[in-house]
C-alpha cells in the first residue's frame, strides 16, 4: 500500500511539503507509548500515534519509521514539522481515532508490523 492510498483511506491532510506519497508502506504500528514503539519497530513501519511532540521525530532517528499519521486531530508544532522535513519523513494528520484509523487500514490489507 502506498502512502497516497493511506492518506485517502484516512481522509488525511499531508503536513510535510515535498512528501513522497508513492513510497510503499509494508506494515503499521499504533501506540502512544514511546517504549512500545521502540520495542515493536524492526522493519520500515507506518506509525499511527496521538503523540505530537518532537520526541516522536527523534524516535525516527533510532528506528525505521516510513511515515507518521497523527490521529485524533492532533496538530504538531511547526518545529516538529520542520524536523520531519529535514529528515524527509512524511507526516499525515487525520481527525479519526487511532482505533478507527487502524481498523480501516487493517481492513484494506495493511498488515501489523512483526513484533
Amino acid at each position, binding site marked *: 500500500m502506498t502512502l497516497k492510498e493511506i492518506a485517502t483511506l484516512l481522509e488525511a491532510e499531508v503536513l510535510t511539503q515535498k512528501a513522497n506519497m508513492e513510497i510503499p508502506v509494508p506494515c503499521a504500528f499504533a501506540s*502512544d*507509548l*514511546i*517504549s*512500545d514503539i*521502540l*520495542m515493536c519497530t*524492526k522493519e520500515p513501519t507506518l506509525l499511527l*500515534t496521538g*503523540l505530537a*511532540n*518532537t*520526541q*516522536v521525530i*527523534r*524516535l525516527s*532517528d*533510532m*528506528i*525505521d519509521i516510513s511515515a507518521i499519521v497523527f490521529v485524533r486531530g492532533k496538530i504538531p508544532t511547526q518545529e516538529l514539522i520542520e524536523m520531519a522535513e529535514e529528515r524527509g519523513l512524511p507526516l499525515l494528520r487525520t481527525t479519526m481515532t487511532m482505533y478507527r484509523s487502524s481498523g480501516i487500514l487493517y481492513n484494506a490489507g495493511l498488515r501489523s508490523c512483526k513484533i
Partner: protein
Amino acid sequence: MAEYLNQNPLYQSAVETFFSDMPEAEVTLEFIVPEKDFNNAGKGSAEVKNLLKRLGVDSEILRRIAVASYEAEINVAAHSRGGKMVSNVYDELIHICFVDEGPGIGDIEQAMQPGFSTADDLVREMGFGAGLGLPNIKKNSDWMRIRSNAGDSTTLELIIFFA
C-alpha cells in the same frame, strides 16, 4: 552501593577480557544530557547511531544500540538532575556509560520490573513513563550494569558487540 548486572552468557568471557585489557577506544563521543530537556534528549544517541552506520555496523545491531542508548539517554533527562553519556567505540563493541547527578534509584530490582515507573505527569504526557525503559535496555544489550545509591548518582553502562 547497590548494583544490578545483566549479561548475555555468550559474551561473558569477551566482556571480562575487555575490562581486564581496557583497550584504547577508537572513537569517543561525549554528550551532556540536561534535566528535562526533551527538545534535545536523543540527539546523543542519534549521533552515535550515525557514526556506527558510517563505520558499517550491521543494521539489526545498529537498531539495538540505538534503542538501548536512546532509552538510557531519556532516563537521564526524565529522572535525574542531568548527566552525561560517554560512548566508546572499539573494534568489536561499543561501551556506553551514562552518569547522572542524582537523585539515585532506591530499589534497582523494582526499577527493572516491566511497568514500574516513577515518571511524573510531564514525562508521561510526552509518551514516556511506561516502565519499559530499563527492560528495553536489558533486552537490547549484551551486558548492562547499574550502580546507584538513593540520594546519590546513578551510573548505567551497557556493552553491545558488533558481531
